[in-house]
């Protein structure tokens, strides 16, 4: 009776170990498939390159904006010059209003050297 049980127990243990082996083989350590990994890596690299390119564009934009700032300053200076010139010639024009005949004559003389 004991021998029969002994055999049965051994068979059960053997069966369990066999079953465990089958389960162990069917559940290996999870690894990402190579094609998925390659796809994700290539997309990550593509995005890295795009980010680098965007940084280069950012630096170009910053340089152009600095140039625009310089041009704006120059335009501002020209506007100021224009204002000064307008005021200068306005004053001269007002002075001409008060010229007498001799001053008008000297105006033309100095202008045309006769």
């Amino acid at each position, binding site marked *: 009776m004991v021998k029969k*049980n*002994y055999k049965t*127990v*051994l068979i*059960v*243990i053997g069966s*369990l*170990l066999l*079953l*465990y082996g089958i*389960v*162990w083989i*069917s*559940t290996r350590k*999870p690894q*990402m*498939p190579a094609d*998925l990994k390659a*796809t*994700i890596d290539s*997309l*990550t690299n*593509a*995005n890295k390159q*795009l*980010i680098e*390119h*965007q940084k280069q*564009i*950012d630096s*170009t*934009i910053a340089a*152009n*904006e600095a*140039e*625009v700032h310089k*041009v*704006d300053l*120059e*335009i501002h200076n*020209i*506007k100021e*010059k*224009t204002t000064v*010139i*307008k005021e*200068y*010639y*306005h004053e*001269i*024009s007002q002075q*001409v*209003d008060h010229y*007498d*005949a001799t001053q*008008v*004559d000297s*105006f*033309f003389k100095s*202008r045309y050297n006769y």
Partner: protein
Amino acid sequence: MKYILIILVSLLPVLAKSQDTIKIPTQVAKQIAKELVSCDSLKAIHELTKEQLTLTEQKVILKDSIISGHVQKGIMYEERIKNEQLKFETQGLWVDELRKQNKRLKVKLVFTKITLGGVIGGLTYLYFTK
């Protein structure tokens, strides 16, 4: 007669000059002078305006360049978003696979417990019934 000729010759430039000279009223001369001053002012302003125009054209070119840079960046953002979406989809496939494997691992754990329990129970039984 000789003296008269000399006097006439010496007066000739004066006479000639008086023929080239015109007389205009002072008010008209003033008006002309004012218009000449205005003309000078306009010439100077015209030169500055030309300079300003050149600078403004430069500014427009630079602004165009800036705009095209921003457009390029926008296109790149769209590409990056597409790539991220593809990555997300690809990772979704992997997540599905991991879920399946997780289920298998849970089954494995159950079998490990059962096996260990059976083996330990069997060995204990054998030890005591020996």
